[in-house]
């Protein structure tokens, strides 16, 4: 099972989290689930690095958090994107696009 899934490339976890949260606020477990769902189960989130990343992003004021009732009825910590977070997501998306375009060029896809 795990052989069919990619670990997340270094440095892109932040961007994925921002992307997921740009749709809706979510708690950590849901974020991990959604990354897998959206990528059609090809990307596996290492749960050990998910939470440090969430706290780091919150300290950079790109995320804010609050305790809310989750879908199971229990209290969970929900993260949401701030305005600065939206700006950051746009910035990261742009640089990612430029990088992937460049990589594609190198592999001759665009030729």
């Amino acid at each position, binding site marked *: 099972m795990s052989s069919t899934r990619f670990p997340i490339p270094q440095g892109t976890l932040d961007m994925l989290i921002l992307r997921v949260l740009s749709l809706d606020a979510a*708690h950590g*477990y849901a974020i991990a689930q959604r990354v897998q769902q959206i990528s059609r189960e090809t990307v596996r989130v290492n*749960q050990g690095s998910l939470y440090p990343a969430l706290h780091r992003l919150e300290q950079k004021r790109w995320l804010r958090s609050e305790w809310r009732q989750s879908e199971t009825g*229990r209290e969970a910590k929900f993260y949401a994107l701030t305005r*600065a977070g939206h700006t950051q997501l746009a910035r990261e998306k742009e640089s990612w696009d430029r990088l992937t375009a460049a990589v594609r060029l190198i592999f001759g896809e665009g030729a």
Partner: protein
Amino acid sequence: MNKLLNLLRWRRDRLERDLDRELRYHVERRIEDLIRSGLSESEARREANLEFGGVPQVQEAVRDTWISRWLDTLMRDVRYAIRSLTKSWGFSLGAGAVLALAIGSSVAIFSVVSTVLLRPLPYPDAERIVSIETLFTNTGQSAEMVSGPDFLDWQIRSDVFARMAAFFGSDDWPAIVGGRAMFANVRYVSADFFAVFGQTAYAGRLLTAQDVPSVGANPTTVVVAYPWAVTHFGSAEAAIGKTLGREGRTAVIVGVAAPGFRYPGAAELWFPFNAQPPPHVSAAQLQANRANYIYQVVGKLKAGVPFPRAEAQMRSIGDNLAKEFAENRVKTVSLVPLQDRLTGSVRVTLWVLMSAVGVLWLIACANIANLLLARATGRTHEIALRAALGAGRGRVVRQLLTESCVLAGVAGLAGLLLASMLMQGIVALSPANLPRIGDVRMDTTVLLFALGLSLISTVLFGLVPALHTSRLNVSDALKRSGSKLTISGAATRLRSVLVVAEVGLSVILLVTAGLLVRSLFALQHVDLGFTKERVLVAYTEYGVEGDAEMRARIRFYAEVLDRLRAVPGVSAAAGVAYVGMGLEPRTPRDYSIEGRPQERAGERPQAEFHAVTEDYFKTMEIPLVAGRDFARTDTRDTPQVVIINEILARTAFPGESPIGRRLRTGTSLRASSMEIIGVVGDTRMQDPSRPPQQVIYAASNQGLGNSPSILARTSLDETSLATTLRMLLNDANPTVPVKFKTMEALFDDTLAYPRFRTQVIGLFAAVATVLAIVGIFSVLAYLVGQRTRELAIRRALGAKAANVIRLIVGQGLRLVAIGLVLGLAGALASARLISGLLYEISSWDVGTYLVTLAVLGSAALLAALVPAIRAATVAPVIVLQQE
């Protein structure tokens, strides 16, 4: 401090709890999902934990992000602060110097306060040592002096003390060491004296009960101070076994006290004495002794006895004695912690200095806040840009605070250096008898104080501009970014308030300094009632016992005085038992006029009592108003005579001549009555700062009073006369010790404390004024700089240079005027507080206030004129082209 720590701890606990909850939620959700997909519960739990990779590890990783983030921001802020401070090094240097000056002087004064007032005395369980004193219920005054019978009763009737001891003596007691006569600082102490202070001997042993001589006998043992032993015998060990004193009256040195122990004051020799009255003393005499104050008493409370309980017990013992004995009618007992007793006299001086330095520090903070605010306003654009890029308000405030923190940190270090130099200066200036002044040094308390001061400074002068700037409207500031910004109304108001505060605080310091200077001047020129110049004072001591020795003493002084008067250049010479001048204050004696009804004890009139020889008034140039001076013909075998001063004559004999009337002194009716033969002018001999008191002069030639000091009025150099007199004395009797002073030097010593206060506060006031002037100047210069364009337009449109100058100067002086008025109100209030330190001058002294206003006002005018003239002389074309 604890609250802050608790707050931090509480915050951390909450973070940890939240993290724990968050991670647990994740794992449990995963387990539920796995169970739903068909795993058993235990399998699901194992799988979930495996996937997660261990909760503690994740917790640790999250915690790392908390700390690294915090450190990262801090480092960045500090780096940024240093960069921006060095970029405008002129500002940083100025602000840093001002702050270092303020912190330095505060720390220097505080280290003196801390050592003298706050640090515990260097004795074991020092907080349990108290001074047991006589409280006079008619005047409410507590005095250290205690009568012999009272001490014995206190010892017997109290049970709150582990030890109690009495002592008496003098700083200048005659001692003979190796056949040489000298003065020594001597105390006679009762058996438990060293035990009260928890002392052990450095060499030999300390005094114990076995050393106490039998009643009426002379002591045969003595303990000496460490430095005294080293000076006279080379080492402490060498001193043991040596003898002091003259033939027939020797004492063996049995011990040397620990090096630091000199109590009281700078004691050198401690002899044991027996506090029990000699058996031949009558009950009546014993009772009369209750009004004879000769001892000082110290006690050490039993462990666990609270001070109030001991005080209550001693008070009730004192109240009972007041009922039992007529002599005790107007007195009871009071306890004073020894530390308070030792520092009581300097407490006021030190707290006044401490307040002055606090005001100085506030002025410095206002000054720096002003400078920082000016800078912050100049940086509006930069800060607006940071805010637009997503820096929150808190982030900007933190950045600015870090900057002032770095500034205060560096200034604090420089301040510490400055403080250690100032401390030496203060110690050098301070009166020689300031208790413990020699121990002043920087300790942990002082360093903590300096740290606290730097921190508070940071917040005081950093927060105001920081909050102010962070409130600014971003888009507004950015829109106007092209050219120099005009300053906002709020910033101007805040800076104006700071200038007003600086001026006001300076007024307070200047008025205080002014009053102290005037008071010192008044004291220096007070009418003493005698001429202090060109008088040599020779302290001598001729101990006597019995009538034969007394007669020998009288002969000795008569002979020395006659030979002294024959010395060319000596116009007059005399003897006086107590020179006065603030040294060895004497308690006044009761007196009663013969032929008048006796007042009750405690209600009788009182007068100072001095024994003098013939020619005393001539030597001191005190006018003889009526009657005659003492003469050689007044001897031990003729009726006793006295001379009174004018105040006593006026008080006791209004409208009649006192000459030929008789009076008695002391409490005992059996005291012989003495005839008044003369009236002399009033003097401030005892204490120049106090108005003249009633005085009775008796003839030392009639065997009254202690052995006299010799006074000589001379047209010669006082030091060369001292050499002559020393030879004269040595010829007449080599066992009489002598030491010399001049009357002028003695008078100067009485001004030591007022002078010390005045010098230090005067220095602070000068610095404060300079700071305030710099503050006014920098604000106006800045305002002018901001308004250059506007002023240029005005000029281009035809405004005259004079108009521009008036505009700017008017703006500055308005602030100064408000500051002056507020400062005056503050000064009036603070002058009331120091009225106790003012002599011969009221705290409402109009001259001082006017001079202060004139000085500050004209300095402020100058500070305002410079930028105003600059504004008026700039060519409008140039300014407008630059835009």
